[in-house]
């Protein structure tokens, strides 16, 4: 009992040393943070400013440099909860299907008669045909457009459902296709949001999917939620259209399949364009800021193979005609096609300055969001409020810790001191572990640590009280010591298991700050079992072997 096997001793002490090493970076928070930022900057741009080089050497590379992330409420920043309009994509799919469907049905005009698209829900196409008897043939034709869905659940399902009633044909996405489309839309949205936020160069953003159609975005250090929204919400939807003509007002009625778009630079100038783009920004593979032949800032771009072919074919057959480059619904330039542009690369000239050209290239690279978003939650926390909270939290923690230590020593003497050392290590473990896994510390998280200070000593209190009881029953010190630990064990196990269970529920159901609280609580529980049972036990055993007291006073 009193003899600790060497491996166990090495294990306990080793863990304590590891804890100390990993907690160390947090004591030099600013230095290490600058060091880490310098490394990130180096990875990103490949070079360092003098300042960054100094920061880089400020913390030795061989030491761990993981820090506890401060949450938004402690650092300041913005939080958004966005809902993605998945239905937008259904509409785009249907609109994309329509020209092909029209062509196929038109070829069958002999049996089907005239065709007319009726107004319908955005996610479906409804077509009225002139000859109701030809409906079966129409369905057959429409079904040729369907392709099987390749998913685990949607085996045997096609991507579109075709139904017919009377003289009307209804085409919509099948459930299996909707499910897989939704998933793609969400992943694409997440990726684009992530790229846009990353491009702004903020530190440690959190971007994650929540539920079926939501994205949680947390960006520390950004000025406000509105700023973040602007960053994400800039759609940069780039399309290339055939120009039909010019107009002087937005009210001018366009022909069928045409639309009126304003010029981005000149007020009062409008273009009438074909609605269906020749090529769209989705097919861009690259965009970068350049200068045109006049030395003006411009944006160079390159299409993928499909885009390059479509663009090449179009330019070959429309030499001498103007075409429009449309960004977010505005015509940024409408050059006349001079030659057949093969190879799929080109240049956008407009009235840009260098910054605008750089931004545009970046936005084009990041691509357009596949669907619109509604922001369900917006939070902004100013940096001063965060700094105040950190200070208040640290101050309160120190006072709380001291109070618990004084109480423990006053109540249990030397054993209370041992428990206090264990408590200190408990907190070190919480912070060290959070640093290693990159967990986020929030204000409720600080409360979680403080609460852990109060409850972590519970295991030791249980043990010490039990020892007292056993001593009162006249047992010798070693027996009392052993029984104290062993008899208290079942209560300690039950107490910590239930505690842990609640922590898990909080972690699963909570979001943001509440989750931060759950994280510190969970780590604290595990750490407290280790420190209270093993560390304290080792300290008491060593003390006992050293002093060999005849009587034991707990």
């Amino acid at each position, binding site marked *: 009992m009193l003899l600790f096997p060497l491996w166990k001793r090495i294990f306990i002490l080793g863990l304590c040393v590891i804890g100390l090493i990993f907690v160390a970076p947090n004591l030099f928070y600013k230095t290490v943070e600058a060091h880490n930022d310098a490394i990130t900057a180096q990875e990103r741009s490949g070079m360092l400013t003098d300042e960054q080089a100094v920061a880089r050497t400020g913390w030795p590379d061989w030491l761990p440099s993981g820090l506890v992330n401060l949450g938004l*409420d402690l650092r300041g920043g913005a939080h958004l909860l966005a809902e993605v309009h998945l239905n937008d994509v259904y509409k785009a799919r249907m609109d994309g299907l329509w020209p092909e469907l029209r062509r196929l049905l038109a070829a069958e005009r002999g049996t089907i008669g005239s065709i007319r698209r009726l107004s319908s829900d955005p996610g479906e196409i409804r077509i009225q045909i002139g000859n109701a008897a030809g409906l079966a043939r129409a369905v057959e034709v429409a079904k040729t457009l369907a392709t099987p869905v390749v998913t685990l659940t949607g085996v045997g399902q096609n991507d579109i459902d075709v139904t017919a009633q009377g003289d009307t044909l209804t085409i919509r996405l099948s459930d299996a296709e909707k499910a897989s489309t939704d998933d793609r839309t969400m992943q694409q949205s997440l990726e684009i949001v992530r790229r846009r936020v990353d491009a702004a160069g903020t530190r440690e953003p959190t971007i994650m999917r929540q539920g079926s159609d939501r994205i949680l975005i947390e960006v520390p250090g950004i000025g406000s*939620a*509105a700023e973040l929204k602007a960053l994400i919400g800039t759609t940069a939807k780039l399309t290339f259209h055939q120009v039909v003509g010019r107009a002087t007002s937005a009210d001018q009625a366009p022909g069928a399949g045409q639309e009126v778009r304003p010029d981005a630079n000149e007020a009062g100038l409008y273009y009438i364009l074909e609605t269906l783009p020749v090529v769209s920004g989705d097919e861009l593979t690259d965009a970068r800021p350049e200068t045109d032949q006049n030395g003006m800032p411009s944006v160079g771009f390159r299409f993928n193979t499909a885009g390059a072919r479509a663009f090449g074919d179009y330019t070959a057959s429309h030499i001498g005609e103007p075409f429009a480059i449309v960004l977010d619904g505005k015509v940024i330039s409408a050059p006349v096609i001079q030659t057949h542009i093969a190879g799929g690369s080109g240049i956008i000239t407009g009235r840009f300055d260098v910054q605008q050209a750089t931004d545009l290239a970046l936005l084009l690279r990041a691509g357009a969001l596949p669907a619109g978003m*509604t*922001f*369900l*939650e*917006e*939070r*902004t926390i*100013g940096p*001063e*409020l965060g700094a*105040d909270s950190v200070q*208040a*939290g640290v*101050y*309160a*923690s120190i006072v*709380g810790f001291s*109070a*618990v230590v004084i*109480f423990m020593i006053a*109540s249990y*003497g030397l054993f209370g001191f041992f428990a206090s050392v264990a408590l200190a290590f408990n907190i070190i473990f919480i912070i060290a572990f959070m640093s290693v896994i990159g967990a986020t510390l929030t*204000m*409720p998280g600080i*409360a979680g640590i*403080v*609460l852990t200070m*109060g*409850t972590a*000593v*519970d295991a030791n*209190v*249980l043990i010490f*009280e039990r020892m*007292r009881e056993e001593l009162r029953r006249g047992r010798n010190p070693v*027996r009392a010591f052993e*029984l104290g630990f062993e*008899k208290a*064990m*079942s*209560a300690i196990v*039950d*107490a910590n*298991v*239930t*505690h842990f*269970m*609640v922590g898990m*529920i*909080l972690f699963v*159901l*909570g*979001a943001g700050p*509440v989750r931060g*609280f759950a994280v510190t*609580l969970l780590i604290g529980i595990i750490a407290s079992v280790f420190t209270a049972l093993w560390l304290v036990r080792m300290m008491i055993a060593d003390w006992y072997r050293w002093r060999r007291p005849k009587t034991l*006073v707990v």
Partner: protein
Amino acid sequence: MAFRLKLVPAHTEFDFFRHQWLTFWAAMIATVLSALSMFWPGLSFGIDFKGGTTIRTETSQVLDVAAYRQSLETLNLGDVVIAEVFDPNFRADQHVATIRIQAQGEGPSAMGGEQIAGVETALKTIDPAVRIVSTESVGPKVSGELIWTAVWSAIATIIGIMIYIWIRFEWQFAVGTAIGLIHDLFLTIGLFVVFQIKFDLSIVAALLTILSFSVNDKVVVFDRLRENLIKFKTMPLRDVMNLSVNETLARTVATSVTTLLALVPLLVLGGDVIRGFVFAMVWGVFVGTYSSIFISKNIVLMLGVNRDKKKVDPSTKIFGDKVEVMDADNRG
């Protein structure tokens, strides 16, 4: 003998059932009243649950809440609640206010940046030094869901704990624990109704933490009860319970005290942002301790325990090397 702080004497013989009509039934009535108070007068829900916007402002000028209200009237924001915040940590020239604005319109979305900018502009007309330090806006769609998340998490917690206690002890103990937890839960909610403290998502987290603290206490008492039931086979259940609570009283008090010692500085010094959260937990320490001593075991006494069939402490299976202890115990 060295000095030892002893809040509880080494040996106590309190009869915790003596004033049962008061300690148990009055607490039960208080629980029911607290539960009813959720409907009338009702909790002061924060924007997490009600939707709307909270804006926190800071200024170096002396605050005039009435002037703030007047300046915002022209914006037609509907129900606007403005309150000045006081905190011992604030600097002498730090005057903080919170402005709570009801959810705007019928749509699901939160209040946008333009509207918040509008509020800032309006406030600047009466106090140029005012700054907005934080804003929170929750759309009605999310807030409706959050209420259910909160309710479900509380129910899941209580059921999870019941199952665990049932496995480890007996079903009577599980019922006793659950009623004790419900007592803690509603009395805390009742306190928030009485003081009309803002009840938001973080308070729900505090409530769940109270539950885990409270069950912690109950488990310790039950654990000792189980031990004593084996030791004193013929002693009436009521006396075994009193003995068990008395034996663990020193630990119960010590743990409650250490928890309070840690939490109270946070309550006083931790800033107003987290005060409601910490306040709930501090209160939870009291109600949790109370229900361990005066509620849960009374329920177990009412339900009775089958003393012939004893569950073996399963921790022996996990931690082994207990046989030796049992022997030693019998020898001693």
